[in-house]
């Protein structure tokens, strides 16, 4: 359980990071909080020749309130965001999901950007990013581009980033006025990897019908997925237990989650339905609807 040898870089500027990535490409890994990368090194599942530690780049450490969205620099710790009043106020779905990540000691080091870049399909933040319509800013020496979270996640631990690109910022839209939200997951014990989970947002119109709805599931596919058909079916509907039970069925009936020793595919599918129903119910109540 000791990491293989690597060359370690601790640059002080993003320019240096990008130059190193341009030079080393897929031989390099970016080290942010290290709560996923260092175990992978210890188990030698990853053997990068170069490790580029971005923790010394102070400009990547801020939470910036830009009115219509919050911008999280790549090294903002999960615990910092969890304690932040502006995150609770403007990104309540994110705030609700953060305490589900690992344990306190993990969140004290782990970063929002790192979790997004790691792209674990059973992790909380990728699902939240998809549900909130977050954008990811990635940079390389070739320039910068912004990707919608839904386009960013490609598969198990796989993103749309090229080998020479670095995640620099995660932009989480402010929750729409009057929207309700809910994050739900099922894990064997608090802090364990989730078996399944869901991030949901519901906004009601003046007649208490559903104006907008977003549902994103984790742990049921190689990447976080939107339940688009269920979202469309809910559009214009009035919140009710029956409506949400039907939406939960719609969102999960055709899922083909993995089976492993933690849960079979059918258990995961069932639990996904339960979490979707609970999340929609809570989100609608928070949006001011009565069921």
């Amino acid at each position, binding site marked *: 359980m*000791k990491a293989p040898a690597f*060359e*370690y870089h601790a640059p002080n500027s993003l320019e240096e990071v990008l130059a190193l990535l341009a030079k080393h490409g897929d031989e390099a890994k970016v080290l942010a909080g*290290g709560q996923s990368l260092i175990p992978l090194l210890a188990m030698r599942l990853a053997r990068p020749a170069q490790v580029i530690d971005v923790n010394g780049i102070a400009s990547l450490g801020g939470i910036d309130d830009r009115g219509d969205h919050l911008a999280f620099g790549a090294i903002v710790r999960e615990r910092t965001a969890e304690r932040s009043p502006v995150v609770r106020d403007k990104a309540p779905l994110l705030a609700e999901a953060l305490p589900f990540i690992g*344990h306190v*000691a993990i969140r004290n080091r782990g970063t929002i950007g790192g979790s997004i870049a790691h792209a674990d399909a059973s992790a909380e933040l990728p699902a939240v990013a998809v549900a909130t319509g977050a954008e990811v800013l990635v940079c390389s020496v070739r320039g910068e581009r912004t990707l919608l979270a839904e386009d960013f996640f490609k598969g198990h631990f796989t993103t749309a980033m090229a080998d020479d690109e670095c995640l620099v910022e995660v932009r989480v839209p402010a929750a729409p006025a009057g929207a309700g939200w809910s994050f739900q997951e099922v894990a064997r014990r*608090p802090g364990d990897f989730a078996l399944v989970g869901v991030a949901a947002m519901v906004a009601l119109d003046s007649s208490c019908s559903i104006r907008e709805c977003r549902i994103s599931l984790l742990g049921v596919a190689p990447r976080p997925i939107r339940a688009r058909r269920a979202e469309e079916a809910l559009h214009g509907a009035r919140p009710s237990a029956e409506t949400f039970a039907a939406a939960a069925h719609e969102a999960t009936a055709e899922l083909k989650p993995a089976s492993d020793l933690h849960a079979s595919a059918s258990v995961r599918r069932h639990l996904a339905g339960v979490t979707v129903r609970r999340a929609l119910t809570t989100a609608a109540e928070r949006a001011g609807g009565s069921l």
Partner: protein
Amino acid sequence: MTGEQAIRLTVNGTARSATAEVRMTLADFLRDRLALTGTHLGCEHGVCGACTVLVDGEAVRSCLMLAVQARGHDVVTVEGLADGDRMHSVQQAFWESHSFQCGFCTPGFVMSTVALLRENSDVDEQEVREALSGNICRCTGYQSIVEGVLLAARRAREEGSVL
């Protein structure tokens, strides 16, 4: 950089310096280079919590941080808690509550508890269980550990014991 690097940091209030390969974790550095073997290593991949230390006052798994990343930072290990022969209030409460059997996980539980109670000593049993969910114990069944934490918390609230 590769090979052995000079690591200067503060450990338990004292400036320390030693060398480490860049791939060496903070946990191995504390144990093997600074001979602070109170920090225990159970799983070495961030699951068991035995290696929990404080870095700049926050609980951190020292197996999930490289020693080079701790340069210039302030680290507190279980050896840094007692005042001479006088146990830290969390250690005292654990001792009185029999919050351990074999003791392997105890340093991690103690450090996690110190961090928890420094932030908030007004905790109930459920909050304690949640806060310590990242520390694994194979002997006690946790009941006596939770009792120890609640005793330390009560003393912090009622007697203002130093955390």
